[in-house]
């Protein structure tokens, strides 16, 4: 029982990270109907931005985190401006292929510029063990869950309580009508990319902190899994991404703990296949027939 609870805690830490990345996927999809496959690499760049802030400028955890988020936000906006905006009226498949291209570009640029050797991420938070009865929780796991929760609450507030959030929801609902209402659609899209990228960067820094290791290809697997998490929760739905991420994290840890590590990656994609077959709109999604 103790072990089971301990594994749940491990799963929630991992799941919070998936959830943060999944939010970026789902927000962009909600507005542009685009699966932004470069998102996992934005997460990687965020981790490296945090690394440089901490290792080179010797900033502490919170400034490094904010720096990484700001840096990734700029990158996200730039990607949208350069790669996706010119294709705004192109077919969805053209934009999708472009997204894969941007992803490959960032990965290989990362190998050239940042070097392929894995690096040690600085210990920004001194390790401490917190004891809860027979349970051991380390403060880094608490930091991950805490930061993720704060960011998700902040996101909910931005989306539901601010003017720009209202504009985002309007654009997601119907771009053309939103434009007729005087909403600057391009600005709203840029803002969405900035927001999603910042959350991914936060996930990158948290992963660096937790595992202590980053490299230019670190975004591939978590990127794909967060995408599965977004689909699992219902793509385009913000609460769906949160739930999907947590479910994925816990499922993965449980599979490793009680089945076999060889099944770890398989389970993520098995979930994707099952959800697409059984409930394509996701756990929290309503079944909507696509208008032709």
């Amino acid at each position, binding site marked *: 029982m*103790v072990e089971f609870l301990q594994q749940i805690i*491990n799963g929630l830490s991992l799941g919070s990270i998936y959830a943060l990345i999944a939010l970026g996927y789902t927000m962009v999809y909600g507005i542009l109907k685009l699966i932004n496959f470069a998102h996992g690499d934005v997460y990687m760049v965020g981790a490296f931005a945090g690394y440089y802030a901490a290792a080179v400028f010797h900033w502490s955890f919170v400034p490094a985190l904010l720096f990484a988020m700001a840096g990734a936000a700029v990158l996200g906006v730039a990607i949208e401006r350069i790669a996706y905006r010119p294709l705004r009226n192109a077919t969805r498949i053209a934009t999708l292929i472009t997204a894969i291209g941007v992803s490959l570009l960032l990965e290989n640029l990362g190998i050239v510029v940042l070097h392929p050797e894995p690096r040690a991420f600085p210990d920004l938070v001194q390790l401490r063990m917190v004891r809860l009865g027979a349970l051991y929780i*380390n403060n880094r796991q608490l930091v991950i869950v805490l930061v993720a929760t704060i960011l998700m609450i902040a996101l909910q507030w931005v989306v539901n309580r601010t003017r720009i959030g209202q504009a985002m929801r309007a654009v997601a609902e119907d771009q053309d009508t939103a434009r007729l209402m005087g909403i600057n659609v391009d600005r709203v899209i840029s803002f969405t990319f900035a927001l999603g990228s910042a959350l991914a960067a936060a996930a990158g820094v948290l992963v660096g902190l937790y*595992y*202590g*290791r980053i490299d230019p290809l670190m975004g591939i697997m978590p990127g794909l899994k967060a995408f599965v998490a977004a689909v699992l929760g219902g793509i385009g739905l913000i609460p769906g991404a949160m739930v999907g991420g947590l479910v994925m994290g816990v499922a993965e840890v449980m599979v490793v703990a009680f089945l076999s590590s060889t099944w770890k990656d398989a389970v993520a994609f098995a979930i994707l296949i099952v959800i697409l077959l059984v409930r394509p709109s996701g756990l929290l999604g309503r079944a909507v027939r696509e208008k032709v």
Partner: protein
Amino acid sequence: MNAEGSGKRKWQDRLRAAFLSLSVLAAGAGTVRAGGVAWAAEPIKLGLVGPLSGDAATFGNSVVNAVKLYFDEVNAKGGIHGQKVEIIALDDRGDPAEAANAVQRLITRDKVTAIIGAVTSGPMKAAAPIANRAGVPILSPTATAAGITDIGPYVFRACFVDDFQGEVMASFARHNLKFSRVAVLYKVTDAYSAGLAASFQNAFKQAGGTVVLVQTFGQNDQDFTAQLTRIKQANPEAIYTPVYYTDAGLIAKQARQLGINVPLLGPDGFDSPKLIEIGGQAVVGSYFTNHYSSKDNDPVAVDFDKKYTARYGAHPDALAALAWDGAAMMAYGLEKAGTDRKALRDALASIKSFHGVTGTITMDAHRNPIKNALILQVTADGGHRIVTRVQP
């Protein structure tokens, strides 16, 4: 295209092939007639394959550094039988498929006499059959997995075999550290890791110890918390984790984060300055088996340490030492047998009491060296101390 056309094309192809082979023959004859002078100026080409980037990059770079250092010295003294040695180094990124490509290229395009490499066992298993089939001697300085040299008569290595390494650590854990309960965590997708885990378990059980839990992980995994949480519940006195330094550093760190404070036991894959960089204080106190220590006071080893440090500004690791010995064995073979690949193979197979920096080497009937192992402990400054030396 019609049938007549393709028939014509075939004829042209045949003619062209005939001319080509004639001209090759002529060129070959020309070289022979030109005599000793032209041959002597021709360098001996040796291929070198290893991970120069990726998770095992420090291994590959150590090997390249040492091999270059060795043959630069040979060349400065006038080469082997008047021929300079040219090294062609290729990156396999620690990937078996890349290693196979690299070896293929070295044999068909660069026409090397022999190959030093690959560095890690997985790539070596993919690369060695290609060289063996082509009759090109291939000597891995560092691939320790069982069965590597059974691939064929042209396959050699300069290091001891994993079974021995696993047995040495099992005996040390049982008899020197007096542990009776050990857990094992290994990488199931890696031949090196799986082989070591098996030999350690067998030897530890035979010595009267209990392996309380065996856990695995896969390629590119970075999260070991699920496995370590289980290990924690099993309450072992130590964790044997036969993995390379990157994984070892992460495992150590995550183990401490979960409140596991028992020492890690490891193989030669722990031997990298990156171990402490990634693992930090969590890896201090770990024990690992190794081929070599820069703190060894054997005169040959001291001399090597001096030369290597002078050129690269850092002490050599075991990989560099093994690569130096591998290069020395290759040079010995070339010296004795010349560049005929069959004769070179025979010379390498007959190496006896060869005094290298990693000990005295004698090739057994399976082309594996018989030599001793060291047990080292990681110290707080990121270095190590020699705990004991184990004879085979």
